[in-house]
């Protein structure tokens, strides 16, 4: 972005001081909730196998392990409950966080095109407050309704190379794209006397990133994987106007699997996301924190039912979400407003899952169930995420 654009973006940010930033959940602060970009299989293991999983949008090297051409589609509704000192709410968020197509190209090469939800900002809040409209005795209950739909998505084209099962190397090019559609309404009860209003806005995002992954299996019982994503600029635009720019967070992860126990795979993963680079993409100073993401899981062959081997999975995961809570005071600062330092939002998840082969190994269904607990300050949040992943090999 040129200096001129940066100055313009800064002016816009300062001019548009008080932003619509009613999230209604601590996991939705800032630009939204990071779904993790895991497949249902990886979610079932707490993310432990994510770096080895061809369907997860983590390591481009993993696509080399797909085996046969695959199409994958995932649906992951989240049932969330937020509890604060002032009340609680229950929501259902329907997400389609991952779709992928992977195609082996000859003996050594594999091509993969995937799209996943990077940061989901879908939310809606409704707040009632009393306002004086007219003379001091004219009070009316004003309802503010704030709705945001949409997400920032990560579209990746990956190429992986592997001449033998011991080593896989992959590179990926990412387009970070998507939009947030915002509707802000002020509703009054008496339409003959008051004018209810509704504003609509749309922010679109565009950026690029590149990723590299290496997977190494020195023996049949153990495997290692490392991957990284280097982020480029991420621009936010409203109409034709640039309203902000930031770096796409860099991401690094390392994983290990152990297959020494027959029929079982134990995996562990640790990752680091430099979310703080997104702090600049906030007009009200919402702070983003770098965070660690660790996971441990086991995947094992389960009972053979009706001639099919059911895969069972379990795992745990701990991570820091990108955006802090509470948000600092909006700009311009309201005199007398209490401003506190934002606190990191942590998430602990426990997961379980199943893998079921279908139709003579040409399709499979992965199911996972996650129970996520999030907390920051005096707000607690509990989410149940069900994931249904269907893989088809045409």
């Amino acid at each position, binding site marked *: 972005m040129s200096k001129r654009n940066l100055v313009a973006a800064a002016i816009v940010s300062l001019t*548009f001081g*008080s*932003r*619509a930033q*009613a999230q*209604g*959940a*601590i996991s939705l*602060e800032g*630009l939204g909730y990071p779904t993790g970009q895991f497949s249902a299989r990886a979610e079932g293991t707490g993310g432990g196998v994510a770096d080895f999983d061809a369907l997860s949008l983590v390591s481009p090297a993993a696509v080399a392990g797909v085996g046969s051409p695959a199409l994958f589609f995932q649906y992951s*509704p989240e*049932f969330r409950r*937020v*509890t604060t000192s*002032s*009340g*609680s*709410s229950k*929501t259902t*968020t*329907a997400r389609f966080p991952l779709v992928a197509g992977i195609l082996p190209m000859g003996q050594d090469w594999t091509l993969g095109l995937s799209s996943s939800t990077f940061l989901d*900002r879908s*939310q*809606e*809040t*409704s*707040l009632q*407050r009393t306002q*004086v*409209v*007219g*003379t001091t005795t004219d009070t009316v209950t004003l309802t*503010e309704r704030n709705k945001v739909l949409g997400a920032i998505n990560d579209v990746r084209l990956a190429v992986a190379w592997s001449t033998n099962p011991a080593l896989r190397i992959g590179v990926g090019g990412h387009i970070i794209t998507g939009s947030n559609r*915002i509707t*802000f309404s*002020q509703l*009054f009860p008496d*339409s*003959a*006397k*008051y*004018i209810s*209003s509704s*504003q609509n*806005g749309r*922010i679109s995002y565009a950026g690029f990133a590149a990723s590299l992954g290496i997977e190494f299996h020195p023996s049949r019982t153990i495997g290692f994987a490392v991957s990284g994503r280097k982020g480029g600029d991420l621009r*936010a635009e*409203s109409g034709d106007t640039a*309203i*902000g720019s930031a770096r796409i967070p860099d991401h690094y992860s390392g994983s290990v699997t152990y297959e020494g126990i027959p029929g079982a795979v134990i995996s562990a993963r640790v990752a680091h996301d430099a979310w703080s680079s997104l702090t600049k993409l*906030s*007009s*009200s100073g919402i702070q983003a924190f770098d965070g660690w993401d660790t996971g441990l899981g086991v995947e094992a062959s389960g009972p053979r*039912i*009706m001639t*099919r081997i059911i895969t069972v999975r379990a795992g745990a995961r701990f991570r820091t979400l990108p955006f802090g809570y509470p948000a600092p005071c909006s700009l311009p600062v309201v005199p007398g407003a209490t401003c506190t330092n934002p606190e990191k939002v942590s998430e602990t998840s426990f997961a379980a899952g199943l893998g*079921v082969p279908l139709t003579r190994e040409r399709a499979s*269904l992965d199911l996972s169930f996650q129970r996520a607990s999030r907390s920051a300050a005096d707000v607690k949040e509990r989410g149940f995420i*069900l994931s*249904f992943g269907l893989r088809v090999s045409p």
Partner: protein
Amino acid sequence: MKSSSLLPRLLLIAALFFSISSCSENLDSSGACPLLCPPVGGDVQNTTIDAIVVDTTVQSLSGLGTEPVLLLANRGDTLDTRVVVRFDSLPQTFLPAGDTTQAIVQVDSAYLALMIDTLSIKGEAPVTIEAYDVDTTANDTSTAAVLALFRPDRFISSQTFARADLTDTLKYFISNDVVLSKIQNKLPLRIGLRATGTESSQIRISSTESGFPPLMHFRATPDTTTKPLTVTLLSKTPVGQAIAAANLSDYTVIAKAPPQASPTILAVGGLPPRRVYFRFDIPAKIIDSSTVVRATLLLNQIQNSSLDPTDTVRVLPQVVLAGRVVTDPQKAAQIIANISADTLTLRPGDAGLVNVELARAVTLWHLQKPDTLPRAIVLKPVIEGGTPLEIRFSSSEDVVAALRPRLRISYTRQVPLGLP
């Protein structure tokens, strides 16, 4: 079906069931407010401005005979109104029961059927309604010419009604001979009605515009097995002006009305009916850059005790649709549209602050530029010409500045829908 394929299929069906059942999204997390969703829109700002550029009283030019009710009033020195009904086309023949068509040679039981608004009747004493032949070749809209015909040699008939006799449908019998004479001479029957009596009286009669026009019924034969004839209102003049002629099929003639307010006072209603035209100059930054949540025209009502000061008048604000090319307020005040379902209910004898809500007008003004849609409104009575009552307001020429019309606008700053 093989048992080996049953389990995967059951699992697939279960997965589909859960998927579909969780498809209905519910994002509303308002229960966590206000801690997690602080107010966004900011406080409402209230400002009162002298935004009146033009305020003036204008005549309602909808025309003679367009009133939805006909006012027949005898209020002594204060109010005297008459009603004219025109039957310019009378039947020449009738069809006796069991016989062929015959020419009308006699008239029996001729009467006018008048629909009356019994709730608005004034006066408890008996009222006498006199009928006069007001057929003339004079100008159709000449009030003086018509009033001059309420004289003895034009007298048709008279009927006195006790208050209890004034029911929803009033039968007013008129001279059979006069009707027959008009039929046989092929002349129009134009009847002028006047109320008289020892005490004041005032009756509202439904007009053609209300959908319940006066009708005339008579029998052409004493034989009751033959259906009576019904004659509807019709005016053949002014020639070549169908709409004006239709309006003049029944109308109110004002012989005497309460004195109107002085030109420096704004007046709504009265006889003949008048409206008030306001044009505003609202700063563009408020209309265009803010979100107006309420707009109220603040008026100071002036007491008018001349007639029925405690009766109510319903006043309706209307938005002016006339563009910039219509510079005459009188003409602009006729090109209007309704903006409010709520009417102001005012009493002429009251005084003090009156709030006229203009929320819907401001919504329209926000969508259109002033060149296309001027920031102007009209205040008019809901029933124009149907009441002599006049509501009066201080104008911008009032010597006391605080009593002049003002505009109070409540607004919020637009919320930029940008980055969080």
